[in-house]
């Protein structure tokens, strides 16, 4: 029961990844957390966050993002509980009460394995928790061939600041892709330059594509994506051209289409290839 539910709720995220890989940019699915505000002050500071996988950026037009891996880090490094969690068909939501001054790191982390294989010319698919992969292999029918399996590590984030941008919420988890802001990731204005370091398993990752897209593409003809690459130190910088909410995305690893189908009994089949994905939402306000 638990297992089935886990597999089902992860489906949108997997579809999102597959869509991103194969489809033209205009129809890409993107995963995001969208906070009601990124800069707060005064008493009773509360931020509400929506979470979804969508075609148009920051429109809840496709599927809710399941928040099983939600983790909110407060400025002092402690874990802040989310309140009023709910999941509807097209979006999930939760509230956060901000009490400590500083920047909060809001993340949803997921890890799953997606596999396909052929039995007598027919393609079958499986997806589930990485812990269940070994059992899945054992239960494969005799004659199964061309196994392609991907272990997907995804991290979706956004950041909000209460009073001053400070604190120590940014400690690498050391798994998959992560973003370490080198300048405060909140309280951004048009014309500001932000710098980040992209990490893979806790280490800077060089020469990796980063895509930045402003929300509201539903209302314009050109996507206007900003395409960047991390440098030798894993760094990239962006000068914010317009006010709006921006999505920062990166991925690393082999695409499922690149894989050679393996014999399920082979050693290679025991270790799915790894693909890591990352996305973050930041807000840029008028000067």
């Amino acid at each position, binding site marked *: 029961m638990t297992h089935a539910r886990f597999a089902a709720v992860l489906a949108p995220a997997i579809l999102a990844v597959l869509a991103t890989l194969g489809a033209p940019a205009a129809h890409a699915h993107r995963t995001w957390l969208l906070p009601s505000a990124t800069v707060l*002050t*005064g*008493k*009773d500071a509360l931020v509400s966050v929506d979470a979804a996988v969508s075609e148009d950026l920051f429109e809840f037009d496709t599927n809710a993002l399941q928040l099983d891996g939600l983790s909110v880090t407060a400025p002092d490094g402690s874990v802040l509980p989310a309140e009023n969690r709910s999941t509807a068909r097209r979006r999930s939501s939760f509230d956060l009460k901000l009490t400590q001054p500083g920047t909060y790191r809001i993340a949803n982390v997921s890890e799953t394995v997606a596999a396909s294989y052929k039995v007598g010319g027919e393609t079958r698919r499986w997806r589930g928790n990485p812990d269940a992969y070994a059992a899945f292999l054992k239960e494969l029918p005799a004659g199964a061939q061309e196994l392609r399996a991907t272990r997907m590590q995804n991290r979706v984030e956004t950041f909000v600041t209460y*009073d*001053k941008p400070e604190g120590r919420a940014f400690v690498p988890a050391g798994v998959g892709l992560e973003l370490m802001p080198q300048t405060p990731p909140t*309280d951004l*204005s048009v014309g500001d330059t932000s710098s980040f370091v992209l990490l893979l398993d806790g280490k800077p990752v060089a020469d990796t594509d980063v895509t930045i897209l402003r929300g509201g593409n539903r209302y314009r003809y050109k996507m206007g994506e900003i395409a960047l690459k991390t440098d030798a130190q894993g760094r990239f910088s962006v000068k914010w051209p317009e006010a709006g909410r921006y999505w920062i995305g990166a991925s690393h690893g082999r695409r499922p289409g690149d894989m050679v189908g393996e014999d399920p009994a082979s050693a290679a089949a025991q270790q799915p290839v790894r693909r890591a994905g990352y996305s973050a939402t930041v807000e840029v*306000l*008028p000067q």
Partner: protein
Amino acid sequence: MTMHLRYSVALGAALAAPAFAADLTLKIELPRLTVAEYHRPYVALWLEKSADQGFAGNLAVWYDLKKRDNGGAKWLKDMRQWWRKSGREVQMPLDGVSGATRAPGEHALSLGSAQALAALPPGDYQIVVESARENGGREVVRLPLQWPVRAAQTVRAQGEHELGALALEVKP
């Protein structure tokens, strides 16, 4: 009360040993707006160095002081430029700087005895005026100020929507 206040301001200025003195009057017009729901604007006035727009001191901050438990502080961040330059670093209310919001119309502020000017090094500055209104817009207007003041003059500027006419009258 008034006497006492004047005395303490004069004493404070004397202790800070102002390098330069001048008469500065800033006239600010808050436009009367015909909107369904009008709230008086939050307004911040501060000094910036012309060369790099570096913050050089607060002159005035008008915000809602009447809300219980300093509740009006919640919207101070809406004066975005001020918030980034100074607001998030200081505790409200700010002695000698913060005050209540003001009604539409013209307001004349005498800034000659402002603390921010008391120890201001000579140079080219701007007085920045930022207005932000609940359910309304935001506007920033800058007026140049050469410090110390060498000649009497008036600098004018005109806001477009949230601020009206502004005039800075200076006399040595």
